[in-house]
């Protein structure tokens, strides 16, 4: 019996020849990643010292910290938190990446998404490194274990394979494909399992799109998501890889808990209707709904492909008067590229408000809504209160649909603008 890519990675980091689902292992993460956030990093730094008497982490090159939330700071308390992070990083010899963009994405730009590597974070959206064949898990407060012990104890998860087949039609994006997976399989289809995505559609989905799909794995119940690396993702990842590892991939005779085949060729743009991240519906059924705010950004969508298609939709049009369209590229590198290509010029000319990279628009710290307002968004989540008042609403959709909706001030099918 062969092994899945996740099993091969966990075997290596636990010092075994092979592992099977259900095995109890002690795994040494290749990378331990976090962004500074109250209740997480500040508590970890304090507990390390006060509870465990550890002044410094043993192998600082395994750790990476990001300052991407509360950027820019608007209170002294926020800046204090950032300063604690900078000081800790300096004292420990751990890099602190600040104002480079959203860490979940920037980690790949910086070479932490090494094919075959194992990474942990407290936040599950790190799963997007799975695009490059990196097994990256969000473990919430258990991240402390990776700061005070060399190894973390865990049970090897099963893997569920989802094959995406066919081709996405014009105006239908990877974002739609992910939410379609949730619609077809349900929000607990991969509970405590690894979601492995393949299928004949995958080579035709851009790296940007694959990052979107892997980023959102948690909404299937999965502990992470991963794809076998191909020539494109290896070319991206290998040049910048921080450690040398042989890439691994699932064997043809690997054992899966389930294999699902999903055809995406007939898929149309979808909307995730509030207040549940699992409530995927066809956008056409909600077209015409009045909306007031648009957000294009986040670790899920806000990459070049998203900005490019939004610019295509908006070119020659104006954002409707009174509609607030916030566009936040996922990283500064993406913003620079979009600037060089003239994409930002088109977006700005249409009336969009374009901001430097930050997580803050996604979780209700910037661009917040008041009661009764309704947003179209490429953010990660549509639960109540996520972007301000608990009595506001968030309709999640692809980047093209956010742009089209901004023109009309109503939920709008983007295909008529493409």
């Amino acid at each position: 019996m062969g092994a899945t890519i996740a099993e091969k990675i966990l075997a290596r980091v636990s010092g075994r020849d092979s592992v099977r689902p259900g095995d109890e292992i002690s795994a040494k993460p290749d990378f331990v990643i976090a962004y500074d956030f109250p209740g997480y990093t500040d508590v970890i730094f304090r507990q390390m010292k006060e509870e465990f008497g550890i002044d410094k982490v043993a192998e600082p090159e395994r750790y990476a910290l990001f300052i991407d939330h509360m950027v820019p700071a608007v209170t002294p308390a926020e800046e204090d938190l950032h300063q604690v992070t900078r000081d800790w990083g300096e004292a420990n010899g751990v890099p602190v990446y600040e104002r480079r963009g959203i860490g979940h994405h920037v980690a790949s730009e910086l070479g932490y998404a090494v094919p075959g590597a194992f990474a942990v974070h407290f936040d599950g959206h790190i799963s997007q490194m799975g695009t490059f064949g990196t097994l990256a898990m969000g473990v919430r407060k258990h991240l402390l274990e990776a700061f005070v012990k060399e190894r973390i104890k865990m049970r090897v998860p099963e893997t569920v394979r989802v094959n995406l087949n066919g081709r996405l039609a014009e105006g239908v994006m990877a974002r739609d494909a992910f939410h379609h997976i949730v619609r077809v399989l349900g929000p607990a289809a991969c509970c405590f399992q690894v979601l492995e995505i393949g299928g004949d559609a995958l080579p035709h989905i851009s790296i940007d799109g694959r990052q979107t799909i892997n980023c959102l794995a948690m909404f299937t119940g999965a502990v992470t998501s991963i794809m076998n690396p191909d020539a494109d993702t290896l070319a991206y990842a290998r040049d910048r890889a921080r450690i040398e590892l042989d890439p691994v991939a699932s064997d043809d005779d690997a054992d899966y808990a389930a294999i699902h085949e999903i055809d995406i060729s007939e898929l149309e743009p979808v909307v995730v209707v509030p207040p549940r991240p699992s409530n995927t519906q066809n956008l056409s059924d909600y077209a015409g709904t009045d909306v007031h705010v648009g957000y294009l950004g986040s670790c899920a969508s806000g990459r070049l492909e998203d900005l490019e298609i939004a610019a295509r939709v908006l070119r020659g049009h104006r954002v409707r008067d009174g509609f607030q369209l916030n566009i936040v590229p996922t990283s500064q590198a993406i913003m620079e590229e979009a600037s060089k290509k003239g994409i930002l010029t088109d977006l700005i000319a249409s009336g969009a408000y374009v901001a430097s990279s930050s997580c803050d628009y996604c979780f209700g710290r910037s661009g917040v809504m008041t009661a009764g307002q309704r947003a179209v968004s490429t953010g990660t989540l549509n639960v109540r209160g996520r972007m301000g008042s608990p009595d506001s609403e968030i309709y999640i959709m692809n980047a093209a649909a956010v742009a089209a909706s901004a023109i009309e001030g109503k939920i709008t099918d983007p295909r008529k603008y493409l």
Partner: protein
Amino acid sequence: MQNLKGRIAFIFDEIDFDIDQIVGVKNIKIQDVDELASIAMQSYDPDFRDLVRPGDLLVGNSNFGYGHPHYPPMIAMRHLGIAGVIAESFSPGYWRGEIAMGFPQIPCPGIMDFVDRWDDVEVDWQDRQVRNLTKGKQLEFTELSEADMQMIQSGGLIGYLHARD
């Protein structure tokens, strides 16, 4: 580890239950435990806080804790005396968060049809069974990972890491 023994104080029959509803999303940033406890369950059973006793348990349906769970709802529940949650299945994010608090979570397929509200139950860790003492029947629950069991036993993540090699 000592068995859990108490009444079923509430059954959340909603699938994919978002625990933030326990205190209400608008209250999710409240940190004062007494205040949280006073508002918890208001929309489900306004008398809940007067009826609940230390050691009581909650029951949930499939994928309990789905969404974007925060800590305050279960901080409130523990403050009111709730000793654990038994559910058909759990959402991993919620699971990790509460296990790190040392709060017992028991995955038990079939639990929804096995208990009624206020039944007396016992969770036997050794035999891996939930016993319905009121109805005189028992149901096996799913084995927890070693790390999760030890974390519950040690009262949470910090105790677990001290005890670990």
